[in-house]
């Protein structure tokens, strides 16, 4: 078994090429730049084609709900003239209970068309349920690889629940202990089975989310006369932000502010066996949100279709305790019992809407199903069992892995701006690091980095100069 990891990882590119059903080499322009839009278009499906694929798959067209009670709660603590109207896209109404069905439906359609016998995805989240559900409908075999347990074999209850639901849909679920080698085993299984890699980060999956942006623009226009002032997106790997923003833009909603929202998990290490069961959130957190935005091509595809820095206007973070509080508020005030991680954007909405004028509108673009293990009570009970203190107080005292502070009043819910210019610089540093030593970026590279960070070319040039001075 010696060096099995190294042996597989050395063959990774070859195995993935067969499993992705697409040659990524054709899009490369230089050691830095590639043709992003060319890659996104290469599957040949128009947005209308994707709408049709999803309609057949039982996905999309979820209800857009106006949350009048949440809006009035916000107005009860806003300055005169402030307090935007809050809406939510109830994505839990999708077949497997989350927006991830949009992503999975396109991947499964492609796998079926290309004649693969089965699909594999490495995911501990709702995406696994979505892939398993869509594979069941398409008559494809399905393997889901999950990071489920710490080394004591204690499972994170939300991931245990996702494992259960994947098995309910007839998938084979491979459950592992903590570590990034989840992807190593996925590659090993792709090699063994010849199945399709239903990656979260392929252009198929990310294109599938564009319909969500399209629906939001159209439904808000029908309801209020205009697309939303702001769209708040729970941000983790970046697909949700990228796909929704692209869909909004395609629908002509170019003025809508794209707001990324994550739970602040600073201080916790994502590959730590001891931190694993002290996070209380399995997704929608900065542990994915920051590294995937600042280096998207760390993913399991050669070039990641999810590139959130292209689209994000602001990135706001909230604490664990604030999200649990808002999750409870949403159930009691709106009759919407939904999963906690999807409510990260809802928590940001409570803070953001307070600062916007009454005429403004904000859309929280997803909810997710909840249930045993996933429910906010289940997560808080589990946190207590893992030795995390839970108390009421000032959310500023929340410390991930140590203490979850549930706010005493809604006024205490205040989102924090994450410095996007720092993230952009960090992305440029990573992109240059990935090129061979001494490589001199061309003007085409600068233009690519500018587009990929939503910056001006002159800003990128300044970043590069500053990075070299350090």
């Amino acid at each position, binding site marked *: 078994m010696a060096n099995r990891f190294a042996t597989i990882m050395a063959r990774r590119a070859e195995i993935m090429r067969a499993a992705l059903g697409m040659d990524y080499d054709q899009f490369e322009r230089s050691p830095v730049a590639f043709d992003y839009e060319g890659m996104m278009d290469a599957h040949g499906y128009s947005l209308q084609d994707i709408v049709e694929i999803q309609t057949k798959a039982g996905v999309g067209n979820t209800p857009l709900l106006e949350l009048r009670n949440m809006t009035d709660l916000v107005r009860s603590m806003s300055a005169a003239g402030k307090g935007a109207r809050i809406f939510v896209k109830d994505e839990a109404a999708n077949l497997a209970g989350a927006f991830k069905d949009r992503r999975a439906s396109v991947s499964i359609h492609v796998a079926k068309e290309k004649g693969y016998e089965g699909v594999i995805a490495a995911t501990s989240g709702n995406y696994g349920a979505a892939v398993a559900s869509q594979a069941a409908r398409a008559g494809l*075999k399905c393997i889901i690889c999950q990071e489920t347990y710490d080394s004591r074999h204690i499972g994170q209850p939300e991931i245990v629940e996702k494992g259960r639901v994947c098995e309910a849909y007839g998938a084979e679920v491979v459950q592992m202990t*903590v570590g990034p080698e989840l992807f190593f085993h996925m590659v090993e299984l792709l090699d063994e089975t010849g199945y399709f890699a239903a990656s979260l980060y392929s252009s198929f999956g990310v294109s599938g989310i564009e319909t969500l942006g399209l629906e939001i623009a159209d439904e808000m226009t029908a309801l209020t006369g205009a697309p939303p002032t702001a769209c708040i997106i729970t941000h983790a790997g970046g697909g949700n932000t990228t796909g929704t923003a692209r869909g909004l833009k395609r629908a002509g909603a170019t003025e809508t502010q794209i707001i990324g929202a994550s739970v602040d998990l600073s201080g916790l290490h994502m590959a730590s066996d001891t931190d694993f069961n002290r996070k209380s959130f399995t997704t929608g957190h900065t542990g994915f949100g920051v590294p995937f935005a600042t280096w998207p091509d760390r993913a399991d595809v050669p070039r990641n279709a999810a590139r959130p820095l292209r689209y994000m206007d602001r990135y706001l973070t909230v604490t664990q305790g604030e999200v649990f509080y808002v999750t409870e*508020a949403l159930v009691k005030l709106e009759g919407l019992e939904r999963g906690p991680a999807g409510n990260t954007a809802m928590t940001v909405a409570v803070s953001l809407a307070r600062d916007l004028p009454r005429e403004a509108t904000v859309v929280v673009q997803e909810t997710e199903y909840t249930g045993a293990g996933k429910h906010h*009570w*289940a997560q808080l*009970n589990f946190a207590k069992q893992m030795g995390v203190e839970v108390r009421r107080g000032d959310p500023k005292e929340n410390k991930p892995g140590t203490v979850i502070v*549930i706010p005493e009043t809604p006024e205490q819910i205040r989102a924090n701006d994450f410095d996007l210019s720092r993230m952009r610089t960090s992305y440029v540093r990573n992109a240059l690091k990935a090129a061979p030593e001494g490589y001199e970026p061309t003007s085409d590279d600068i233009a690519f980095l500018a587009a990929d960070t939503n910056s001006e070319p002159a800003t990128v040039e300044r970043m590069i100069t500053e990075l070299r001075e350090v």
Partner: protein
Amino acid sequence: MAEATHAQKGDWVEIGRQLLDPADRSPNLPPETADKPLLMWVKGFALGEAALGEELSIETMTGRQVTGKLSAVNPGYFHTFGDPIPELTRVGKDLRARLAAYRATAQGGR
């Protein structure tokens, strides 16, 4: 419920096995992860007989044959909601009262 300790051929079971020794794991892991083996569990139909902890081959839902140590027979799901959270139980009542008070004001009544 009584937990079965022995699997017969054809039973729905879970097996576990080690995927990587600590020495073969990915570089750059934090020490508390690096010194542990990478383990995995998977479920399927037993292809033979075994007691808990004994070697057993299974056929998974996709038809793969996997060998490992029997870890459970007819494995169930026991994750739950748990007790109400005292730190949250009053939130709904407080917020409903707050909303009613706001709507009784001139601004909220509009």
